[in-house]
C-alpha cells in the first residue's frame, strides 16, 4: 500500500499554478510581439500587448506576495541547499537523472514536508526565482514604465539594453520552464509529480 505524506500547503500550490499560467501566457504573447509580422507570432500584436501587459503586472504582484510569503512562512528554506554533503548529493542526483532513471533505479531523494526539493532542484530554483525572474521582472517594469529606464546608453535609446536583457532572460526562463515541465514527469509515475502539485500529497513507494 502506498503511503502519502502532505508536503505542499495550499498557498504554494495556488501560487505555483498561477505563476505557471502567467509565465506561459507571457512567453506566448512576448514571442508574438517579438516576431510580429514574420508569421511566427501566434497572437495579433494588439492582443499580445494587452495580454503581456496584464500578465506582466499580475506577475509583479504575485512575485511580491511570493517573497513575502516565503519570508514569513519559512518556506525560503526549501530553496537553500544544505552545504554539508552538497557535492556528493548533487552528484548522486545527476547520476540518477543521467543514468539511474533509465534503468529503474530509485530516486536518491525522497521529499519531506520540510524539504520538498532535492539538492539540484534547490540550486536551480533558487537561481531562477531569485536571480532570473527578478531580472525579467525588473527589465519588464522598465519596458512598461520607460522613465525607469536610462535615457540613453552608448548613443542608443535606453530601452535597447533593457529590451535585450528582457528578451534573453525571457528565453532562458522559457527554456527552464520546458525542462521543469519535463522533469515533472520523472516521478514514480509520469503523472505523480503533477498530482502532488495539485493535491499537495507525495506518494511514497
Amino acid at each position, binding site marked *: 500500500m502506498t503511503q502519502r505524506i502532505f508536503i505542499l500547503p495550499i498557498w504554494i500550490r495556488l501560487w505555483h499554478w498561477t505563476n505557471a499560467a502567467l509565465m506561459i501566457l507571457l512567453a506566448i504573447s512576448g514571442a508574438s510581439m517579438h516576431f*510580429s*509580422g*514574420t508569421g511566427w507570432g501566434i497572437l495579433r500584436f494588439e492582443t499580445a*500587448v494587452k495580454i503581456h501587459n496584464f500578465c506582466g503586472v499580475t506577475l509583479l504582484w504575485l512575485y511580491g506576495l511570493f517573497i513575502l510569503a516565503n519570508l514569513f512562512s519559512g518556506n525560503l528554506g526549501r530553496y537553500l541547499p544544505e552545504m554539508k554533503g552538497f557535492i556528493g548529493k548533487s552528484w548522486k542526483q545527476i547520476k540518477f537523472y543521467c543514468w539511474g532513471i533509465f534503468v*529503474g533505479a530509485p530516486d536518491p531523494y525522497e521529499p519531506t514536508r520540510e524539504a520538498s526539493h532535492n539538492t539540484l532542484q534547490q540550486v536551480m530554483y533558487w537561481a531562477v526565482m531569485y536571480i532570473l525572474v527578478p531580472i525579467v521582472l525588473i527589465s519588464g517594469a522598465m519596458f512598461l514604465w520607460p522613465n525607469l529606464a536610462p535615457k540613453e546608453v552608448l548613443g542608443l*535609446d535606453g530601452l*535597447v539594453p533593457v529590451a535585450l536583457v528582457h*528578451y534573453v532572460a525571457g528565453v532562458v526562463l522559457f527554456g527552464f520552464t*520546458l525542462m521543469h515541465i519535463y522533469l515533472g514527469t520523472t516521478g514514480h509515475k509520469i503523472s505523480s509529480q503533477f498530482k502532488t502539485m495539485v493535491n499537495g500529497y507525495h506518494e511514497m513507494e
Partner: protein
Amino acid sequence: MKCDLRSTVKTITFGAGILFLAGILVATGQTPQAMAQQTEPAAEEPQQEDAKPSPEAVAAVNAKNAECLSCHTEAGAVTADPTIVDLEALSKVLIDPVAMQASNHTGMTCISCHVGSYEGFPHSGPLQEVPGRHETLDCVECHSLQTWRIEPQVAHGAHGQNPKVFERFDCNSCHDSHVFQSASKLKDPVEIIAQDNGMCLSCHDSELRFAEFTAGIIPVPEQPDINVIHQFLADPERHWSSVRCIECHTPASETPTLNISHKILTKEEARRDCVTCHSADTHLSASLYRYAAEQRDAEDAGFENAQLLSKAYVVGATRNTKVDQLGMALLALILAGIALHILGRVIGRLMTGGKE
C-alpha cells in the same frame, strides 16, 4: 563591295555625330552626367542654393528685417513707441526671429512675402479680414509645383470633408512660415515628431484653438479626447513622442522616396494595424527615419532597422537576429536533450521489462 560601302558610310556618319556632340559638350564645358541631370525634371523650385549666401547678402537681409523686428518681437513690443504704435495690437502679432533663423525661410526678407502696404509703417491699407493674410504672398507664388501637387491632396483629405471647414483650412493652418523646417532639414526624428505633431495637436489637442477655428461652422465644437480616440495604441502618449500623426493619417506611397502625401486620412481610412510599424519591414524606416543617421555598429551587431535605435526600441521592428539565433539554438538544445532523455527512458523501460 556595295555592302561594305554602306557600312563605311554608316560608320563615318555615326562617328561624326559623336564627335559633333562631344564638341558641343566641350564647348559648353559640361560633362555628360551634368547634361543628364539637366534633362531630369527640374527640382522643385525655388532651388536650394548650394553655396552659402555671401556675408554681405546676409547682412543686407538682416538690416532690412531689423526694421520690422524692431516692433514685431517680444523685445520690440516693449520698446516700441506707444504714441505711434497700438501696443495692444502689436502684442498679438509677434514672431520669434531665432526660430525664423532656423527655419527653411531663413535668409529671406520679411517683405518678400509681406508685400505692398506692409513695407512701410504705419501699415496703411484696409485691415484684413483674415489676419496677416492681406497682401501676403501665398505659398503658390513661390512654390507653384509643390502647391499644385499638395493642394488637391489636402482637399481630398479629412479637412476637405466639410466644405465650411475647408474654406478656412489652407497651408497656413498647419505651416507657420516663420518656423517650419522640412524633415530633410531637421533630420533628427525627435525634432521632426515634435514639430509635425505640434501642428496637428495645436488644434486636435486644444479646445481653445479648435473652438476658435470652427466658430460658426461646427455648432458645438467638441472633439473627443485625442488619447481616448487612440486608446487602441495601448499607450497613446508614448506614441505621440515617438511617431507622427501623419504616419497613420496619410496614405503610404508606392515610391518611398517621394515626399509624404498631404492627404489626411479620416478615422475610417487611418491605419490601425500595429504591424505597419512593429515589424521588420517597418514603415518608419522609409518615413520618419528617412534622414536619420545610420547606426553601423548596431547593424553589424545584428539589429534590424538599426537606424531607429538611437531614438527608440520598437518591439518587432528592431529585434536582433543574432541574439534570436542564439536563443533558438539554446531552446533547440534543451528540446534535443529532453528528446534524448525520453528515448533513454523508453529504451530503459523496454529493457527492464516495463518497470521504471
